[in-house]
């Protein structure tokens, strides 16, 4: 028997640290070659770490949310024959990790009777533990620290040790059953005193940082204009009817992408990146349109590259492909970076107006609101038209209000006369 140690790989662009997102295995699991052990994340790309060997997991090198140095031990696997670690070179660290991790194996066994007891919440639910309200839960310093790291309030944890002592495995059990307990509150009007602490890690931390950074650095200036999309919607319906079966259905997004491409020709200052540290604005010839996408783990912005060189259907297919990849957390780093302008749409939930936050270092973001049928006055007549608002934000540090307004008016003109989208 030997130990095979897998280190945190360098997954690109010379990044020194990688965040461990999720474990797909636990200590004691048997793994086979190519089985995915963990997902790790850099910036916005999620990467699978597959196992190169068959064997049994003996230690995990970190906890989800932990930022680990490239080259640090990610996981240790016991393998047949010699591993990649010399016996003598096996330092204290893996031994210690194994000791800490060992209870986790038992936790799996433990959790079964607990789950079975679930219908009797009086016995197994945290607050009902026979412990006085202000009584200190019994737990060793190591367990207390672990609970703090996990954001668990010890007094809510049922201790299975002697005299109700909270053990490491009790924390695991508590985490495992956390979800199911929440739903077992019987009365809709029961007073609730529970609170849940969610560590801001992974995607959420990245998003939080970026949003904060953007609102702190950029001088946001928002501009809303209503657009008559009756004509472009008619065109879209017509194209879908005629080519939908063969070329795929078109949403409004590829039309918007096209409108941006055409309008940006006259507004190069808006298809740009502003490096405020170097004080340089880079105007791009290419139009790389970021498409803000809601994934389970949070907001992601996959990028339709070279939109200027794509037809409607080409754009549509690329948007669909990227959205799926992003939602599955499998979009690559390249697919998630390098946009020059961003399009954000909440679809049917688009509301009337939004105030999008810039995707720095870009200088513009265009938000799409909901299409509604409204009575409009055209040539003295009240007619029903399909109307849609565009809510856009610009970095006022480098984009003047006049330019921004003229740009949106250009987009509006293109969308209201859809033929002009394609006239060269």
């Amino acid at each position, binding site marked *: 028997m030997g130990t095979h140690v897998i280190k945190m790989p360098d997954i690109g662009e010379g990044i020194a640290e990688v965040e461990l997102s999720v474990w797909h295995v636990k200590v004691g699991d048997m793994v086979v070659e190519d089985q995915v052990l963990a997902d790790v994340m850099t910036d916005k790309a999620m990467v699978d770490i597959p196992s190169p060997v068959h064997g049994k997991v003996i230690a995990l090198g970190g906890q989800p949310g932990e930022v680990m140095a490239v080259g640090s031990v990610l996981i240790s696997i016991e393998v047949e024959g010699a591993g990649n670690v010399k016996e003598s070179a096996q330092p204290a660290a893996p031994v210690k990790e194994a000791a800490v991790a060992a209870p986790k194996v038992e936790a799996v066994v433990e959790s079964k009777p607990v789950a079975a007891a679930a219908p009797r919440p009086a016995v197994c639910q945290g607050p009902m533990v026979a412990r006085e309200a202000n009584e*200190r839960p*019994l*737990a*060793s*310093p190591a367990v*207390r*620290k672990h609970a*703090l*790291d996990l*954001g668990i309030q010890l007094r809510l944890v049922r201790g299975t*040790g*002697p*005299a*109700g*002592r909270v053990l490491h495995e009790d924390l695991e059990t508590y985490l495992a059953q956390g979800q199911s307990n929440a739903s077992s509150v019987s009365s809709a009007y029961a007073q609730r005193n529970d609170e849940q602490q969610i560590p801001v890690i992974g995607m959420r931390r990245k998003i939080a940082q970026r949003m904060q950074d953007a609102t702190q650095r950029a001088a946001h200036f928002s501009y809303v204009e209503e657009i008559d999309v009756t004509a472009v919607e008619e065109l879209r319906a017509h194209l879908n009817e005629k080519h939908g079966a063969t070329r795929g259905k078109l949403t409004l997004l590829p039309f918007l992408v096209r409108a941006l491409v055409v309008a940006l020709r006259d507004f190069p200052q808006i298809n740009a990146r502003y490096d405020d540290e170097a004080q340089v604005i880079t105007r791009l010839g290419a139009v790389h349109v970021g498409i803000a996408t809601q994934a389970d783990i949070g907001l992601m912005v996959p990028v339709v590259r070279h939109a200027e060189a794509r037809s409607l259907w080409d754009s549509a297919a690329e948007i669909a492909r990227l959205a799926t990849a992003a939602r599955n957390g499998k979009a690559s780093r390249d697919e998630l970076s390098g946009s020059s302008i961003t399009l954000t749409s909440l679809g049917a939930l688009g509301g009337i107006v939004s105030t999008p936050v810039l995707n720095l270092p870009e200088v513009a973001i265009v938000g799409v609101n909901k299409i509604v049928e409204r009575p409009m006055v055209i040539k003295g007549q009240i007619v029903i038209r399909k109307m849609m608002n565009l809510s856009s934000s610009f970095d006022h540090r480098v984009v003047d209000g006049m330019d921004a307004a003229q740009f949106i008016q250009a987009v509006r003109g293109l969308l209201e006369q859809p033929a002009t989208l394609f006239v060269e």
Partner: protein
Amino acid sequence: MQTLNTTLLIIGGGPGGYVTAIRAGQLGIATILVEGQSLGGTCLNIGCIPSKALIHVAEQFHQTQQHSQHSALGISVSAPTLDIGKSVEWKDGIVDRLTTGVAALLKKNKVQVIQGWAKVIDGKTVEVGDTRIQCEHLVLATGSKSVNLPMLPIGGPIISSTEALAPKSIPKRLIVVGGGYIGLELGIAYRKLGAEVSVVEAQERILPAYDAELTQPVHEELKKLGVKLYLKHSVQGFDSKANTLQALAPNGDTLNLETDQVLVAVGRKPNTQGWNLEALDLAMNGSSIKIDNRCQTSMRNVYAIGDLSGEPMLAHRAMAQGEMVAELISGKSREFNPTAIAAVCFTDPELVVVGQTPDEAKAAGLDCIVSSFPFAANGRAMTLESKSGFVRVVARRDNHVIVGWQAVGVGVSELSTAFAQSLEMGAQLEDIGGTIHAHPTLGEAVQEAALRALGHALHL
């Protein structure tokens, strides 16, 4: 004016401050520590360490003197003499080694130490002389000062513990004002070094912070050593011409106690004066700075640790707080949540209290088993010529979880480790009773106390 920028600034180089700095250095936090006097603070320079050194000298001297008179051990020596200058030199050597060690550790961890008195400007700015230091996080660790009595101003024959720890000569007569642990530790040491010692205490017992059963062996030892106790006596003043201390007896009489020196040891108070702490206008808790369970004061990113943050004023508490604060600043999640903090009196015999006493447990509404095991039945204690004292355990009756330990006896300070460990791990009586304790050691009394609580002590 020179301006320095740093992430963390610590005011005070005592056990709290220097531990914060070392841990912060380990975590890669840019750290500046400001100390006006000597690294190590009260503890290393004028507190814990020098007092233990002096107590050791006194004990050695006392033992030798015992042997010169009558030795049951069969040792005969001629009457010893004491070169107190040399004793102090030896003590200073220890202090020097320790403070130099602290300086080396700080250097090793890349902490910048600035000598000088800090003056707080605001929550992120401190001035030391003509240097202005800007920081993101400020840790206040200025410790505590001896409480003074207005009628006994320090000077001449009236001394504080600081002077008592660096004596030029041992006075013929010494009156200790205050029967707490500082007064008794020093009073007993001075007695053993040859002074006639009296203790004046306003309360009705010595060590009034501890229960009567626990302090009884110390009381007996004081009697044996010939230390005079004036309990329930309050000090009125000092006549420097007649060299007499006036004390009001419980019956209303005023006693005139002749003495050569008066040691004022009536407690310590947080050091909040003289460094412009007022500028921060922090919320207070009595005379100490109010902190939460992360040592955060009422001002964001300003922390207070150690004696400055109030009771218990113990170096090991300050160190634990400091270590935690450094980790908090580095972004780790921590809180100060010890089950117990051991308190030790290096009197003769020594006294240890960890966790709840029987009275405290009762006050907390706990139904407890209280059980003690005497050192009179412990072989190791006998071989140390120690007959008095005991180990006492307090445990919940319902689940046998131990909530407190107390001990009094020769060398019991070292048992504090086992006591604290058992409390932190949530041990039950059965855990301690079921742990094999080495024979012959004082620790056997710990196991036996637990067994006795379970109704089956073996050696009693």
